[in-house]
C-alpha cells in the first residue's frame, strides 16, 4: 500500500499530460492484447493441416475432414472453405474468390494497427508537451524577485522529465507491438498465399486429369 502511494506521488509530478498519455497507453495495450489473442486463436494453422496441403498425395476429403476440426472463426478455415466451395468452378474463378477472401482477411488482421502506429509517434510528442509545460511552469517561478520557490522549480523539472519518460516508454512498447504484429500479419498472409496457390494447383491438376480422361475415347 505504501508502494502504491509512493507511485501515485511520483506520477502526480508528471502533471496533466499523464492523462492523455495514459489513454494512449491503454489503447495501445488493448490493441496489442487483442491482436495477440486474434493470432493465437483465429490465425493459427496446425502443422498437420499444413503438411496435408503440401503433400503430393493430397486428398480433398481429408482436407474437409481436418477443416471441421478448426474453429469456424479461424482465418485459415475461412480461406480454405472458399477454395473448397469453389473447386468445381474453373481455376481462374476459384483463384479470384480466394484472392478476395485473402484481402478481407488481411484487412481484418491489420485492423487498428494504424492506431498503434499513430501512438508510436504521438506518445513522445505528448511527452514533449509535458516537458514544455513543466519547464514553463518551473521558469515562471523565477520571476523578477528572483528564485522565490526552489521546490516549485525542481517540481516543474521533475514533471517535465516524468512526462517525457512516460511518453517514451509508451512509444517503445507500441513500437515493439506494431513491428511484431505487422511482421506476424505479413507471415500469415504469405503462408495463406502459398497454401492457396498449392490448392489452386491441385484444382488445376484435377481439372487437367478430368479433361484428359474425358477426351479419351
Amino acid at each position, binding site marked *: 500500500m505504501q508502494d502504491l502511494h509512493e507511485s501515485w506521488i511520483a506520477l502526480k509530478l508528471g502533471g496533466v499530460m499523464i492523462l492523455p498519455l495514459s489513454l494512449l497507453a*491503454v489503447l495501445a495495450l488493448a490493441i496489442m492484447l487483442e491482436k495477440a489473442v486474434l493470432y493465437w486463436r483465429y490465425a493459427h494453422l496446425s502443422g498437420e493441416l499444413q503438411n496435408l496441403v503440401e503433400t503430393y498425395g493430397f486428398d480433398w476429403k481429408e482436407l474437409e475432414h481436418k477443416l471441421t476440426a478448426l474453429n469456424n472463426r479461424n482465418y485459415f478455415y475461412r480461406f480454405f472453405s472458399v477454395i473448397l466451395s469453389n473447386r468445381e468452378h474453373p481455376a481462374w474463378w476459384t483463384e479470384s474468390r480466394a484472392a478476395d477472401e485473402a484481402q478481407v482477411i488481411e484487412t481484418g488482421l491489420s485492423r487498428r494497427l494504424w492506431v498503434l502506429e499513430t501512438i508510436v509517434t504521438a506518445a513522445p510528442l505528448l511527452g514533449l508537451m509535458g516537458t514544455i509545460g513543466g519547464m514553463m511552469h518551473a521558469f515562471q517561478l523565477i520571476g523578477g524577485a528572483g528564485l522565490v520557490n526552489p521546490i516549485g522549480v525542481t517540481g516543474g523539472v521533475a514533471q517535465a522529465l516524468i512526462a517525457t519518460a512516460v511518453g517514451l516508454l509508451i512509444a517503445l512498447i507500441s513500437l515493439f507491438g506494431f513491428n511484431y504484429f505487422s511482421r506476424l500479419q505479413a507471415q500469415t498472409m504469405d503462408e495463406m498465399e502459398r497454401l492457396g496457390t498449392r490448392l489452386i494447383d491441385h484444382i488445376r491438376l484435377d481439372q487437367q486429369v478430368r479433361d484428359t480422361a474425358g477426351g479419351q475415347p
Partner: protein
Amino acid sequence: MNSTAVFDPAEPTLWWSLPSGLLLWVIVLWGFGLSFAAPDRVASAPPAAIDERIIELPPPPAPPKLPSRRVVKATPVPVHATPQPALIPPRVVVPVAPPAPPAPPPVHADPAPVLPPPPKPQPSTDSSQDGTRQMGARALYQPKPVVPEDLRDQTMHIVVTARIHIGTDGNVAVELVNPAPDPRVNRLVLNTLKTWRFFPAIQAGKPVESVQDVKVAIDVD
C-alpha cells in the same frame, strides 16, 4: 461453406481488451512510479561530515560619550542600522551596547546533539554619571541548526550573518544580514535562530530591547 457471411473476429473484442489494457497500464505505472520512489529509500549512505560553528559577533562598538544631551539621544541608533532606534528609552545616557568583548574562538560541535553553549554573560557596566546599571542580553537557549539529509549530499561552506532583535521578554526576531545563496539554508538558519531565547538586556534595572549580530557557519564536507 459460405464465403459471403464474413465474420471478423477482430470486431467485438474491445470489450475485454480495453479493461485488460487498463489493468496492465496500472501495473506498468506502478512499477514505473516505484522506480522513481526507490532511490529515496535506498539512500542509506552515511551522512557527510558536518562542521557547524556559531560565532557571535561582538556588539557594535560604543560610541564616544558626549556631554550634550541632544547628541546622547542619537546614540541608541545602532551602528549596524537597526531600524528601531525609538524603542530605546530616550533617557539613556550611556549607549546600550556594552564594550566589545574579545571575539570568542569558534566552537566546533558535533552535528547531532544540539547543545546550548554556556551563556556568555555580557560584562555589566556601571554608568559613572548617574549610576544606572546596565547589562547586555545573555543567551539562555542556543540550539544549532541541524542540517537535513537533503542538504548533506552537497559540499558547502556557508557563513550566514543574522541580526537578532531581543525583546524585553527574551523573545527574538531574526533577520538575515548576509544570507546564503541557497534559500533552504536561509530558512534553516532562520527557523533555528527563532528558537533562541535570551535574558534581555538590563538597563537601569529594567529590561530593554537590544540587538545582536550572529554568524552561523555551516560546513558540509
